[in-house]
């Protein structure tokens, strides 16, 4: 039974990370749920931001109240709700592959787990970063226009609430993606991430004794909503030696890096 092995006329070339990125981008844009989730996020941030600006503009007539860039903090409310969208999208990017069994097809087409995860992470990060940065900038500009003042916000503040927030949200999404890769279950991963966002507050209510006061404050200060808030306000809220300025970004980057490392190891070791 000697047969000449088949050779394909399609030119063979080694696939690389660029191919995987193109593939992940196709996957991302071909799903309606991506569009919906990001659409809801944009509407939430922009809509709530502008509504809030109107409401405040009606309430207080004096534009002087927004000195020191505090006008920019009005975007925080919408962005807090947007975290839910980003978390959902990040988790679903990976868990929907596990849920449908698509992951097996993907890994058959590209046996290098690392490349698949890297491509997913890059595409997702870029998408969220660009979307969030743009929508933050638009929202902030719209709010300033509604209130008729920029409140003298410095360039540094502007960069922090646009690029800074964009990066923070992208890393938060990446963290969700890593958690999704570790848990492989959509509902479980989303619940875990939402829990991660809200749990510090629930715990803080439970720790209602004076001795644990510091722990409680720390829990709240290092919670994700508070870190996001710090990026908007710029300073520690409670006047304690807590994260300020760009520090929230370094914190979430560290956490995400650890989770991603775990995801890489898990994807490589476990049976698909």
């Amino acid at each position, binding site marked *: 039974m000697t047969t000449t092995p088949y050779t*394909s*006329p*399609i*030119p063979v070339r080694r696939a690389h990370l660029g191919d995987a990125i193109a593939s992940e981008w196709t996957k991302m844009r071909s799903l309606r749920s991506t569009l919906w989730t990001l659409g809801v996020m944009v509407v939430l941030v922009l809509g709530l931001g502008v509504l809030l600006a109107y409401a405040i503009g009606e309430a207080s007539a004096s534009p002087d109240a927004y000195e020191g860039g505090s006008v920019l903090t009005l975007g925080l409310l919408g962005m807090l709700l947007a975290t839910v969208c980003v978390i959902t999208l990040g988790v679903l990017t990976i868990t929907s592959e596990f849920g449908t069994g698509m992951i097996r097809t993907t890994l058959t087409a590209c046996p290098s787990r690392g490349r698949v995860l890297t491509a997913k992470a890059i595409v997702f990060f870029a998408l969220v970063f660009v979307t969030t940065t743009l929508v933050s900038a638009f929202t902030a500009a719209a709010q300033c226009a509604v209130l008729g003042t920029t409140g003298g916000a410095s360039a540094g503040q502007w960069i922090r609430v646009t690029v800074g927030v964009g990066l923070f949200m992208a890393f938060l999404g990446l963290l969700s993606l890593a958690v999704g890769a570790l848990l492989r279950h959509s509902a479980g991963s989303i619940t875990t991430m939402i829990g991660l966002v809200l749990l510090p507050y629930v715990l803080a209510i439970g720790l209602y004794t004076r001795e644990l006061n510091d722990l409680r404050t720390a829990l709240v200060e290092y919670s994700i909503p508070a870190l996001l808030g710090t990026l908007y306000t710029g300073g520690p809220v409670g006047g304690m030696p807590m994260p300020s300025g760009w520090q929230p970004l370094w914190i979430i980057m560290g956490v995400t890096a650890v989770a991603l490392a775990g995801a890489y190891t898990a994807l490589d070791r476990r049976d698909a």
Partner: protein
Amino acid sequence: MIELEGLTKRFGTKTAVDRLSFTVRPGMVTGFLGPNGAGKSTTMRMMLDLDAPTSGTVRIDGRHYRELDEPLKYIGALLDAKALHGGRTAYHNLLCLAQSNRIPERRVGEVLDLVGLSAVARKKSKNFSMGMGQRLGIAAALLGDPRILMFDEPVNGLDPEGIHWIRNLMKHLATEGRTIFVSSHLMSEMALTADHLVVIGQGKLLADMSMADFIQRNSRSYVRLRTPQRELTRDVLASAGLTAVDAGDGALEIDGESTERIGELLAEHRVVLHELSAQRASLEEAFMQMTAGAVEYHAHDGAGPQWGADVKGA
């Protein structure tokens, strides 16, 4: 007994089932064949009154499905093995069906035993493999010990042992005088199971006849012959006005004559035979012949890329 009379179903402008009339009789296994999109599923759904016919009627033992008191005791159906709630255990899925038709609870354990699922009766059915889901669907069909049974692709996902089992089960149920109506795409499986065939294509009835008739009418049959005395044989046959065609593997093929006649003929001339057998085409060949032209998704031949040197050079 299931009687269809002028059954028609239109979805918008598309006619899925077109004036279909036939009777499924008890005491045998009736196979229901047709290419994808021929309207088989729609027909089966109308039989169970899940879809309302545009016109025409279906009668189950002379009555409309909706007039049946406790339908599971008349007719059991396996349409889609996944048509059960995955969050419920196998046992409870069957129990709620049994209760709705006043079938005693112990029957649930019995049918689970029967299909070999007792060990997983208390497991949620969403974790079942395809074969287990199929067995659960069969259990549901058997629940009311009905006189009429309908199976849509019953062997889907079953392993050979399971396929063997369901085949024998259906034959046995038919010998008990029940009406068995089975649809399947697996011709080789049908050939082993069904006694009678109903074939539809593009919603219209193409054939309603026994398996043997169907194969005979839709394909060639011939006699196959092997002998060490080929030339002598050819001469003998030629003298009787028969042409022997070379089959390629050393055998000869003769059209239009019975083995008996050829046997006698060759014995007269003392020809030594190594084989003398009647060949009938398979059900699959007969089916392909009949339904050619009634197929929806045509695949191309060949799988390799259709491009040639231009890409190689690129």
